[in-house]
């Protein structure tokens, strides 16, 4: 079970802050981030990429997005 960051309803820069905080505590593996705006989805993906994490999967669930970040 991968760890989950729930950033739904939070506006910039919180989703990115929470994601980066969690990613820095992990060296590799998988992290799921939940967001609910396109802006947050783009920002989280961009910030994760800067640390070498790729968004393996971006699922839209209604108005929300579930990003699965991965680093191997």
């Amino acid at each position, binding site marked *: 079970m991968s760890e989950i960051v729930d950033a739904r309803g939070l*506006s910039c820069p919180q989703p990115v802050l929470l994601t980066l905080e969690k990613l820095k505590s992990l060296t590799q593996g998988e992290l799921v981030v939940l967001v609910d705006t396109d802006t947050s989805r783009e*920002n989280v993906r*961009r910030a994760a990429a800067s640390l070498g994490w790729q968004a393996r999967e971006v699922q839209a669930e209604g108005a929300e997005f579930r990003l699965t970040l991965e680093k191997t």
Partner: protein
Amino acid sequence: MSALREFFASRAGIISVGAFIGVFAALLQKWGNPGNMGICVACFERDIAGAIGLHRVAVVQYLRPEILGFVLGALLSAFAFKEFRPRAGSAPIVRFVLGMLAMIGALVFLGCPWRVLLRLAGGDGNAIFGLLGLVGGVWIGTLFFKGGYNLGRTQSTYAAVGWLFPLIVLGLLALRLMFPQIPDKEQSGILFYSIKGPGSQHAALAVSLAVGLAVGFVAQRSRFCTMGAWRDLILFRQIHLFSGMLALLVAAFLTNLVLGQFQPGFVGQPVAHTMELWNFAGMVVAGLAFALAGGCPGRQVFMAGEGDGDAAVFVLGMISGAAVSHNFGLASSPQGVGPYGIAAVIISLAVLLFIGFTMRQKTS
């Protein structure tokens, strides 16, 4: 559509949007808008406050179509890309106060972060102090973010919540069309107009509205934000938004050079004063308020157009702040700060620190 979506999210996309705004802001000056004020979100909201009589300063009354275009352009973009999402409920009263304080600070400097760039691009050296203040204010904001400052979560809600602000804007546009300016008259129907001063200087309605719509559309897509530019640079060492802001500055500068609008100096700059400390301190207030609210005034207007009811409250706070600023003598003029401007800066800073220190939440 998806290729366009990717483009606007890319580095090239944000740079193109910044350059687009820079060029058209400089052109708007050529076409009639005030000096180094092709687009100024704070000044234009202040002019709107004057146009509907919330303050009665004769020289700054005009229902600026650019701002109306921003909201409606962002609305169109949000619908075109299926991104209109009614949401609200994250500390609205705080956002209203942050909007007021941001406006009070911006009117001590005489411009929003967009106008800081346009004043620099036009050669106004006083804007250097405004820029330093803006960066300082945003930097203080990042310290609060690191300390857990958070306005709380928004909720998805009824469509009406997202629609109300765009509908208000449509109503204002209807008023503007029903009551056009009458030469040498201060009033047309229920709207006020300036017959001299910055409020009397404006491009034609159709031109202003068209540029506003276009800027609103592309800026909503690209998330262009002049506060986020500095915040992300300081907080994350990310240059994405920063590159867009820089593109605005460079594009406006080059366009000014071509149009002969670049006039370097400190004294006699258009709609500006030379009190360095208060240019600086006013923008510290504005920068911190924008940072705590999560977006520069432009970005707040675009978000209000895409269904964000909290951003709409911030914008209404700014318009109210403009009325307070002018009614109570807080706003500066080319002669310098207003009679109560210095006190307003100090009180505003104290309130911002209160908000920053007290709204902490450990979310993890």
